[in-house]
């Protein structure tokens, strides 16, 4: 079969001067540039393309575009293996490898086709019924068996090797579809100077004018299309996007589009993405997406060689391929009868035109006369014969008698369905047109108009006139002046049709949805069992739920349901389409933002220094912070962290705390504003002093804690926790703008401006003395605990010094402009050499705050009140503040609420686990006896054993009691002693030095 035996001598838009080769199921075939995989297979006489989803029936090629339900193939190998690709849209390149799907061991002999014999159990809703019992077998037996038997292609297990891009484009007029209507709309808008984007899912423009080899302006359509394309290229504000599917309509004139940049190449060239995801924002949109031909439902209508008539013309005219040599043309309309002409012109024999309409029409009679074939009017094809290759058509004539016509191709047409999916994405319901016997668009998305076949205008002339008109309206809406231009001449073909939803009397299964293997019997069953509403029909039978979203099946199915229920089609209704119109690879949605790039990473000012000093990093939100700084010889993290803690407690350590949120609060009402925000007083804070503060949510629950420094009469500088920096800023901004707009206060984020380092430990002042420039006095007298001051360091670098402590030691936080952050870290460590100073990370930071009983995110967890964490006394009774009123609710004042205390294991050698629940000794391990849980644990280097903080029911009253820390999740059950949450320096003397 190596020769292109079904290729015509001339014609088509393929490049016959070049021959390329592709592989299908391991066999090498020739093709020409410009072929799709489907056209190349047909040219080589390959009809069988795959096996069906449920029954594994042999399937061929039904269509020539993105509506194809059958010819789904696996493309390429290795990491680029891609399943369920429509052979009808895949462009052949030299070396392309494709594989049929859903067959074993081979396409021609498939073991699972036995499913066909089991059809009675695979009917509609089969998996709801057949495998109900015994339920235990579902996961082990039924589901794996069904998945193996019914799955389609296989995705690659390897990471996607390609790059994807995600872009935004703007235009005045977006034209969707590059057929005659779309081209006219685009060129009309372009001539007026409008910014135009024309997107077409095919690799060349022209739509059905090319498929039908039409004549426009007395020249071949292909020539006319070329001229229009050339003109569009001349306009700098026009972008023509080929291989681009507009797949979704979204709010605000926004459309999603997928551009297949490199899918037609063996692999994307360097730097070029495989696909681009476009977000197109358009003032006006012209939907010129054409129409999809309706198959006719008859017995064995899924046999290879049964093809849509329009697809037959496409293969002949666009690709120079003859899909069969002896054809029966089976139609219910005038338009499709012309297929007979194209077939004969291309060298095929037309056995008969079968027109379901009694008497047929003049137009069809003319075709039959021209091609010299019999016209059987009032007749229908009731069965296709043959298994893997079509052998004939059983035709029932008007008188009711049947005859068999020998043929290898049935070109069928049940009329056309306008492609109005994009009009329904925002909720516009399709409307039934009695005149056209099809659904047309209902309420359109704002700014959208419809032209050509998509609007139900099926004639070429109508498409051209309509496209120009709609383009003119669109450009005028955008504020441009229309330019007069001639309308190209074209014929106005008859599209007269009479609906034919299904043919009864056939022996074989009559398929409605070929991709999901849904037959007329399934629809009848759904009707009998009460699933009559279209949405129920869809879900019960899975009709229209395959990758093609029922483009060739939905209308037939609901028309059949309408017949069964004796309702009209509008009464039966139509399902709505959802994005995407055609499948979109997940990688295209992600674009650049995959793996580590999924979210941005924020680097603290000392990042590069820390990295070069061997830090192990931890992700805290978007930040990458040093977790600890291992030294050679240290066996594990605990040893490093223990060393870092001991260094701080005994000498001095340095930690980058720049990630804390920093907010500049300025204005005449800054003090009054902060008094409302914080639960404790801030207006009374003296200039040059700092204070620890907590803020509550409106409902009385803790929101965040931090420090407030007063730099001037009208100038405060507040810090937040790293995790809540964004949330607190938002909260302050909301309060300022909406709750107290009369407060004259400004809030400015300063988080990024400052590199801020904690310098903690008994030697911290001595170290800083070497750093802070001489004129500035940082003696305890001048710079006591909770002091703040502006000064310079390292010979003139602007700095702010805060005497704050999170570790419980004498400590400072010192900040310099962020650009000096890296050098400043090095300078601090250099100055600290004589004290054996070390950098410490978030682990040591956490250990020391637990030793001191300071709360953190584990305790400020969205469920705790200030009283719960031992800060009840801090709440001001002299002023109002956010959370004050709702914090007085009975449930929040309940003395039984779990309250912060400390814990240590009775057996000091045991480890503690955060998350363990507390139980009184001797009670059953049930939820009713739950007394709270451990929030934070750490190994305390200072005490030499594990310690914990936790929320225990009436905790402070139970100090000294032994309770169980019960952790069924990880299998731990430890006796712990309830102690004060402050494990070291209970009197707080060390911070003052």
């Amino acid at each position: 079969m190596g020769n292109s035996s079904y290729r015509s001598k001339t014609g088509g838009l393929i490049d016959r001067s070049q021959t390329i080769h592709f592989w299908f199921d391991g066999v090498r075939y020739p093709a020409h540039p410009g072929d799709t995989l489907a056209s190349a297979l047909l040219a080589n006489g390959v009809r069988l393309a795959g096996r069906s989803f449920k029954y594994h029936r042999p399937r061929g090629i039904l269509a020539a575009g993105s509506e194809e339900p059958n010819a789904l193939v696996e493309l390429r190998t290795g990491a680029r293996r891609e399943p369920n690709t429509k052979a009808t849209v895949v462009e052949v390149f030299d070396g392309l490898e494709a594989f049929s799907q859903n067959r074993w061991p081979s396409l021609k002999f498939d073991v699972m086709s036995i499913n066909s014999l089991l059809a009675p159990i695979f009917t509609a809703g089969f998996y709801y019924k057949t495998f109900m019992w015994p339920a235990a077998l579902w996961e082990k037996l039924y589901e794996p068996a069904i998945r193996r038997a019914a799955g389609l292609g296989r995705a690659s297990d390897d990471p996607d090797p390609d790059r994807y891009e995600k872009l935004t484009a703007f235009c005045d007029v977006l034209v969707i579809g590059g057929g005659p209507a779309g081209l006219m709309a685009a060129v009309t808008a372009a001539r007026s100077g409008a910014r135009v984007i024309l997107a077409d899912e095919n690799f060349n423009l022209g739509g059905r004018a090319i498929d039908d080899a039409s004549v426009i302006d007395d020249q071949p359509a292909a020539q006319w299309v070329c001229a229009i394309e050339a003109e569009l290229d001349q306009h700098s504000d026009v972008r023509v996007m080929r291989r681009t599917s507009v797949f979704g309509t979204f709010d605000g004139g926004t459309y999603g589009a997928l551009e297949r940049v490199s899918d037609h190449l063996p692999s994307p060239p360097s730097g070029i993405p495989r696909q681009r995801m476009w977000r197109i924002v358009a003032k006006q949109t012209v939907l010129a997406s054409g129409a999809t031909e309706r198959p006719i439902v008859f017995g064995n209508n899924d046999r290879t060689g049964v093809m849509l008539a329009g697809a037959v013309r496409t293969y002949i005219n666009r690709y120079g391929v003859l899909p069969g040599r002896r054809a029966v043309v089976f139609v219910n309309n005038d338009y499709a009868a012309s297929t007979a002409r194209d077939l004969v012109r291309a060298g095929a024999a037309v056995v008969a035109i079968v027109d379901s309409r009694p008497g047929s029409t003049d137009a069809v009679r003319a075709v039959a006369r021209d091609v010299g074939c019999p016209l059987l009017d009032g007749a229908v094809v009731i069965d296709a014969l043959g298994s893997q290759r079509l052998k004939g058509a059983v035709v029932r004539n008007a008188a009711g008698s049947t005859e068999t016509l020998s043929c290898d191709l049935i070109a069928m047409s049940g009329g056309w369905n306008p492609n109005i999916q994009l009009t329904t994405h925002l909720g516009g319901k399709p409307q039934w047109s009695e005149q056209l016997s099809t659904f047309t668009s209902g309420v359109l998305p704002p700014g959208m108009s419809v032209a050509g076949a998509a609007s139900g205008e099926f004639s070429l002339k109508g498409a051209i006139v309509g496209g120009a008109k709609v383009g003119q309206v669109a450009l005028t809406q955008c504020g441009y002046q229309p330019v007069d231009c001639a309308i190209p001449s074209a014929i106005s073909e008859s599209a007269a049709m009479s609906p034919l939803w299904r043919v009864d009397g056939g022996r074989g299964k009559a398929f409605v949805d070929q991709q999901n293997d849904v037959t007329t019997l399934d629809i009848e069953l759904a009707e009998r069992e009460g699933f009559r509403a279209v949405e129920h029909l869809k879900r019960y039978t899975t009709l229209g739920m395959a990758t093609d979203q029922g483009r060739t099946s939905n209308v037939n199915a609901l028309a059949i349901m309408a017949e069964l229920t004796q309702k009209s089609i509008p009464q039966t209704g139509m399902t709505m389409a959802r994005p995407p119109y055609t499948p979109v690879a997940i990688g295209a949605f992600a674009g650049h933002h995959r793996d580590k790039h999924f979210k941005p990473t924020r680097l603290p000012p000392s990042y590069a220094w820390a990295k070069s000093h061997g830090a192990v990093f931890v992700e805290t939100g978007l930040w990458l912070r040093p977790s600890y700084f291992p030294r050679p010889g240290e066996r594990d993290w605990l040893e490093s962290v223990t060393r870092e803690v001991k260094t701080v407690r005994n000498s001095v350590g340095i930690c980058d705390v720049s990630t804390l949120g920093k907010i500049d609060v300025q204005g005449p009402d800054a003090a009054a504003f902060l008094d409302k925000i914080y639960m404790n007083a801030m207006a009374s804070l003296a200039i040059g002093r700092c204070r620890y503060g907590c803020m509550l949510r409106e409902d009385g629950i803790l929101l965040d804690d931090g420090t407030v420094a007063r730099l001037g009469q009208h100038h405060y500088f507040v810090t937040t926790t790293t995790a809540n920096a964004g949330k607190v800023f938002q909260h302050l901004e909301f309060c300022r703008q909406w709750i107290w707009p009369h407060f004259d206060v400004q809030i400015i984020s300063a988080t990024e401006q400052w590199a801020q380092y904690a310098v903690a430990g008994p030697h911290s002042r001595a170290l800083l003395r070497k750093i802070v420039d001489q004129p500035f006095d940082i003696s305890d007298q001048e710079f006591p605990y909770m002091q703040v001051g502006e000064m310079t360091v390292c010979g003139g670098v602007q700095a702010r010094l805060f005497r704050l402590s999170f570790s419980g030691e004498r400590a400072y936080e010192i900040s310099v402009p962020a650009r000096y952050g890296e050098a400043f870290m090095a300078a601090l460590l250099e100055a600290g050499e004589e004290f054996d100073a070390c950098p410490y990370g978030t682990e040591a930071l956490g250990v020391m705050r637990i030793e001191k009983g300071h709360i953190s995110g584990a305790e400020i967890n969205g469920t705790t009140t200030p009283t719960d964490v031992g800060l009840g006394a801090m709440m001001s009774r002299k002023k109002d503040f956010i959370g004050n009123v709702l914090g007085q609710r009975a449930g929040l004042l309940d003395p039984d609420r779990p309250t912060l205390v400390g814990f240590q294991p009775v057996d000091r050698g045991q480890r503690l686990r955060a998350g363990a629940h507390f139980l009184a000794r001797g009670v059953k391990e049930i939820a009713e006896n739950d007394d709270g849980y451990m929030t934070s644990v750490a190994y305390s280097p200072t005490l030499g054993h594990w310690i914990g903080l936790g929320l225990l029911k009436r905790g402070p009253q139970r100090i000294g009691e032994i309770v169980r820390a019960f952790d069924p999740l990880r299998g731990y059950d430890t006796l712990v002693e309830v102690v004060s949450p402050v494990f070291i320096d209970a009197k707080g003397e060390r911070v003052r030095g």
Partner: protein
Amino acid sequence: MVENILQARSAFPEFSLSRYHQLTIAVREHITMVSLAAWDGQSEKVQSVIQSIYGHSLPQRPVRVGGMEVSFLWFGPDRWMAVGERDGGRDLEENLKRHLHGLAAVVDHSDGRAVLRLSGARARDVLAKGLPLDLHPRVFKANDVAITHASHIGVLLWQVDDAPTYDIAVPRSYAHSFSDWLLDAAEVFSAI
């Protein structure tokens, strides 16, 4: 006392200048940025102070006024961002603080923002890969300002000239992620 002036580190240590076909991406290292937020009822006074000192009338919509030495970007209602060349000192911040004392909150962002300059015919094509704004010359012109996002990162962007040239300020901690995206987006233009 340690006797050295600290070395400033670029927010973009990986590169300072990248050239592509019809596109240049350069780090603007010596830029200084100071935000002004007028206190209630003081907006007009702030405007007249700026007018008398710098000779620029502060904009009331998202545009930039001024010249090479110092310019003022609209940064919200009664808010502006002063942008200037940094000569090593804090002159701009200190001048503004001195003259606007009691009239506006003046906050230095010279270290908080990292600035890149994109220039050339391909600049719009690169930015389209992450910036959801219409930069068409009829829509967004020289001296227009936008507070938006690019590649999931908040940015302040202004158009410098019709080349077109854009300056983009990102929060310093995001500089690495931002340039990572931008250089990746620009890569294709080195191949052409």
